[in-house]
């Protein structure tokens, strides 16, 4: 189908983009890679009267390191993120998760900022940003503010972004030593969205887990931290079934929906199984200490 008519604006600077969003009001929308927005326009599920294309704004793309932080421009494409040497070296979890998003052609256009701003519960990157404890930089008419990823997502397709604000940067703390990470995604066929996904960061000191952060994809309207699992993992040995016992708490406090792919109880089951796998892989024990087929 063909989208409803709209005006197309291509500002050269952030200030111009923010001014355009403010002037055009409620019916204006940011266009980044268009890989979520254009499908919605085509199905006429969205009909903004103005699109503000941010893809050519200077300084919104690219990755650099500032001290202990990896700074990723919001308009950096998925493909650039997953291949960037700073990301593969310092944040392999992000590279791995971005590699599971869609397919190569979509990853060439879609952006990290777009995937977060879109806030689809089935999107892989919100839960990863939450588990990484990323900080998101938002720019609006009054200046900049920084919001932790854990407070960015408000509801289904809804974030704290105001109508005239741009997400400009994703700031990811570089984990110190001893961390292992993994993103475990369950989907029916290639290129499909996650039915459930689990992002795990596990810190080991010898055989003992000393820190754990777990983010869940598609277990409610927003990404959630599996706090009960994180608590239960602290001080646990990576052997002797401690991980499996902790993973049993994975569905606690979640509110998954039912859809064609899965009912809520099945999603809860998946959350437990996938959390166990993700933690074992992050801790480096899966496939060696335990049989892979068990769960």
């Amino acid at each position, binding site marked *: 189908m*063909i989208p*409803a008519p709209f005006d*197309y604006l291509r500002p050269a600077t952030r200030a111009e983009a923010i001014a355009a969003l403010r002037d055009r009001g409620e019916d204006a929308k940011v266009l980044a890679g268009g890989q979520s927005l254009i*499908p919605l326009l085509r199905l006429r599920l969205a009909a903004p009267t103005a699109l503000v294309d941010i893809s050519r704004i200077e300084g919104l793309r690219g990755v650099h390191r500032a001290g202990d932080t990896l700074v990723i421009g919001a308009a950096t494409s998925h493909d650039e993120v997953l291949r960037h040497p700073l990301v593969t070296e310092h944040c392999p979890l992000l590279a791995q998760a971005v590699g599971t998003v869609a397919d190569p052609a*979509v990853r060439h256009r879609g952006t990290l900022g777009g995937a977060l701003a879109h806030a689809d519960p089935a999107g892989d990157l919100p839960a990863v940003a939450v588990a990484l404890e990323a900080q998101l930089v938002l720019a609006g008419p009054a200046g900049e503010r920084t919001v932790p990823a854990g407070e960015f997502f408000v509801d289904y397709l809804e974030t704290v972004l105001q109508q005239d604000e741009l997400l400009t940067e994703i700031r990811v703390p570089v984990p110190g030593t001893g961390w292992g990470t993994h993103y475990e995604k369950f989907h029916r066929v290639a290129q499909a969205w996650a039915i459930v996904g689990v992002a795990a960061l596990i810190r080991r000191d010898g055989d003992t887990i000393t820190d754990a952060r777990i983010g869940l994809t598609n277990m409610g309207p927003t990404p959630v931290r599996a706090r009960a699992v994180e608590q239960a993992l602290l001080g646990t040995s990576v052997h002797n079934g401690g991980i499996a016992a902790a993973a049993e708490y994975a569905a606690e406090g979640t509110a998954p929906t039912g859809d064609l792919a899965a009912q809520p109880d099945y999603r809860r089951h998946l959350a437990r199984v996938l959390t166990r796998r993700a933690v074992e892989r992050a801790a480096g024990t899966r496939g060696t200490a335990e049989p892979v087929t068990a769960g």
Partner: protein
Amino acid sequence: MARIDVTVDGVRYTDEVEPRTLLVHYLRERLGKVGTPIGCDTSSCGACTVHLDGISVKSCTVLAVQADGGQITTIEGLAPNGELHRMQQAFHDNHALQCGYCTPGMIMAAVDLLRTNPDPTNQEIRDGLEGNLCRCTGYQNIVRAVRAAAATPTGVTG
């Protein structure tokens, strides 16, 4: 209306388009490049894949105005000298098509795959083509064709 300036298959065009015009509609309906088909309404089939500034994109999920200033290659411009590109030849030799509907997109995606990975394994080919759906072939011969193309020296047929 918005003015765009694009180079498509080596020819430069300056055109007025409605901002809502999808790149695939611009290619097919304005320029007559019907070699690029449309297979779905959900950005999932990959039939419409073209190269924009040398990388694969789904032309049904790009606005023509977003391509302003860009270089576009469609299946029609892949082998400008009238011969077949090594990927086209490999699809022909390996029976990698039946109805042919997915083929232009499949070939454009496969060429892009070899750009980043000149000697892919079967699994890497399947992953690289995961955004392209074929309802006929079962993919086996497509994977064979991409392997065959990878084994063909570049420069011989493109």
